[in-house]
């Protein structure tokens, strides 16, 4: 299982390279550069390691959430504190890797897409510290609901380019970033933010994010002398979850991904790609998709912009189909409740994306035994969401 994808970038029937011809040579160039960098232990890997530790603050802590555990009266709960990584989310693990790679490849310009703005901020950050100009595509609707991150990107020297087509969210931002890449293919490096897109992106982003799972494995073994029973993480494109899951794929550990249930699965206003989707091709790879019967991609909805996406990484589709991982959904209102709950009980304000995993924890943990261990990936901090939560919450402004 750890040897996937195959040489052509397929995870079983999923993945691949479904892109305009102009992009094909660039993908090949990227794959060669990445595979070389991966083996370059003393060069690329050492340099990335230094940035991850001294700049991004890794390893992030694995925190035993005692009050949470006590409150849930079930399994022992640990939180992997990706919210404490520089820029406030796991996204920095991937962007430092990719921008460093871009520099080694001699690219002179960085572009990215962003939904919640966390990937945009992380890309702008990596581009700043590595000295490359950066432009970030972001949907109008996301610009409206993630103002803090827009200001951060600008302060970091990036240009935020608004995208006003379609649903004005992450899907359209990726469309525009891809059009930019096709147009400026010789000079530009496209930093994709999740385990989606054409090969080698799903593999490469997974590898960069698997630092989360590697650390978690060492940390839990040091603290508990055994592996956890359950790993829990939210799934939009799926990078924080896959980063956590990947080093545990061959262990007897239950892997659980939580998708955006939005206003409820019966409303068609959700982002539950694996729960409600069917197989298709979007943004360069074959995977589960939210689409109509004619193969047109549907609009999605989630209170968490990072989960507001009609696709999902091809490796998640593979893990679902093989039964290795299980996927469930949590609604907007359940996530909002968990957002407050974790803040009050543990003094940690989670990103609305991560709050989906916390909401499912509330359902899962009470039914488990006291010596079971659940680890939740707290993929990001929630400062960015305060204003929007104020708008959504019946209790008014936070």
């Amino acid at each position: 299982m750890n040897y996937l994808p195959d040489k052509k970038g397929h995870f079983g029937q999923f993945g691949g390279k479904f892109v305009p011809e102009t992009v094909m040579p660039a993908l090949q160039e990227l794959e060669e550069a990445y595979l070389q960098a991966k083996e370059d232990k003393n060069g690329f890997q050492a340099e990335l390691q230094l940035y991850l530790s001294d700049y991004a603050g890794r390893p992030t802590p694995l925190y035993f959430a005692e009050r949470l555990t006590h409150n849930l009266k079930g399994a022992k709960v640990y939180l992997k504190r990706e919210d404490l990584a520089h820029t406030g989310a796991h996204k920095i693990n991937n962007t430092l890797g990719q921008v460093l790679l871009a520099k080694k490849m001699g690219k002179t310009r960085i572009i990215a897409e962003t939904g919640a703005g966390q990937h945009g901020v992380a890309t702008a950050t990596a581009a700043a510290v590595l000295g490359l100009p950066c432009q970030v595509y972001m949907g109008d609707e996301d610009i409206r609901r993630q103002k803090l991150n827009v200001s951060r990107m600008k302060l970091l020297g990036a240009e935020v380019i608004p995208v006003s087509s379609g649903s004005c969210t992450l899907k359209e931002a990726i469309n525009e970033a891809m059009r930019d890449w096709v147009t400026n293919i010789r000079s530009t490096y496209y930093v994709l933010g999740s385990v989606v897109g054409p090969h080698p992106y799903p593999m490469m982003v997974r590898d960069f994010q698997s630092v989360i799972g590697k650390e978690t494995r060492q940390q839990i073994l040091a603290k508990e002398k055994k592996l956890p029973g359950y790993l829990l993480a939210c799934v939009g494109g799926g990078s924080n979850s896959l980063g956590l899951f990947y080093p545990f794929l061959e262990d007897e550990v239950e892997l659980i991904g939580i998708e955006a249930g939005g206003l409820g699965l019966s409303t068609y206003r959700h982002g539950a790609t694996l729960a409600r989707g069917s197989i298709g091709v979007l943004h360069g790879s074959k995977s589960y998709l939210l689409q109509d019967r004619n193969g047109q991609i549907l609009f999605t909805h989630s209170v968490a912009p990072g989960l507001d996406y009609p696709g999902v990484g091809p490796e998640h589709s593979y893990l679902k189909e093989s039964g290795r991982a299980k996927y469930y959904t949590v609604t907007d209102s359940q996530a909002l409740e968990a957002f407050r709950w974790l803040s009050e009980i543990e003094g940690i304000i989670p990103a609305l994306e991560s709050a989906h995993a916390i909401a499912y924890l509330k359902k899962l943990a009470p039914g488990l035994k006291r010596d079971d261990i659940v680890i939740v990936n707290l993929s990001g901090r929630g400062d960015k969401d305060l204003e929007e939560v104020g708008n959504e919450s019946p209790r008014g402004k936070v």
Partner: protein
Amino acid sequence: MNRLEAKFKKLKSEGKKAFIPFITAGDPNLEVTKSLVLELEKRGADMVELGVPFSDPIADGPVIQKSSQRALKKRISLLKILELVRQLRQKTTIPLVLMGYYNPIFKFGEAEFVKRFSQVGLDGLIVADLPPEEANDLKKEADKNNLDTIFLLTPVSSEERIKLVSASSTGFIYCVSYTGITGDARKGEEDLKELIGKIRMLTSKPIGIGFGISSPQAAKKAASLADAVIVGSAIVKRIEKYRGNKNLLREVGTFAERLARAINVN
């Protein structure tokens, strides 16, 4: 011999180049699309590319994006385009090629798609986000049913890719005139002479040039290098402007005629 091959043979024997206009099926509606195809033929089109609208057309610029959106608002689907092709075939033998994205075809079912569209008389297929590597199943079906599969090359294609794309293409090879999306007339001109030269060294299949060809002058220049000239956004822009206007057919037709003349002026 299928219609594309026969057409290229005939044109070659007459010392002519093919003019291939592109219009989106169902923009502004299917009845008008049908009339447009017949009008384009009358005005000198040698083949017609029918765009299949898709919600996320990553290889297209704003003009064709908007056109696709207008067609999708009319609920245009592959089933409706199938009926369009069937009706067109009762009135004309002009070669018809579909151009679109992979997902609607995948969802329709590749084998089913090829079978039903070749039955009603479709001649060729261009899928903007399907490189030969991912096209094995579709190609197998298409070859069996004598449906041409046209793949693309670009100014950044290596010799290795030129070989792969040339070997996989039937009908003609679609040469994209710059690195970019459709309808970007601002794009600086790439050195197509060199690319076309490289392709000619490796294959004798006909070559069409497309993307960003917006005027008779540009069409003439492309025709001097290739066997076919494809014009999309410039025509679709006129459909956008005159949709709902009784002069639509005449306006688009006149422009097409100027392009057709420029392509075969000696």
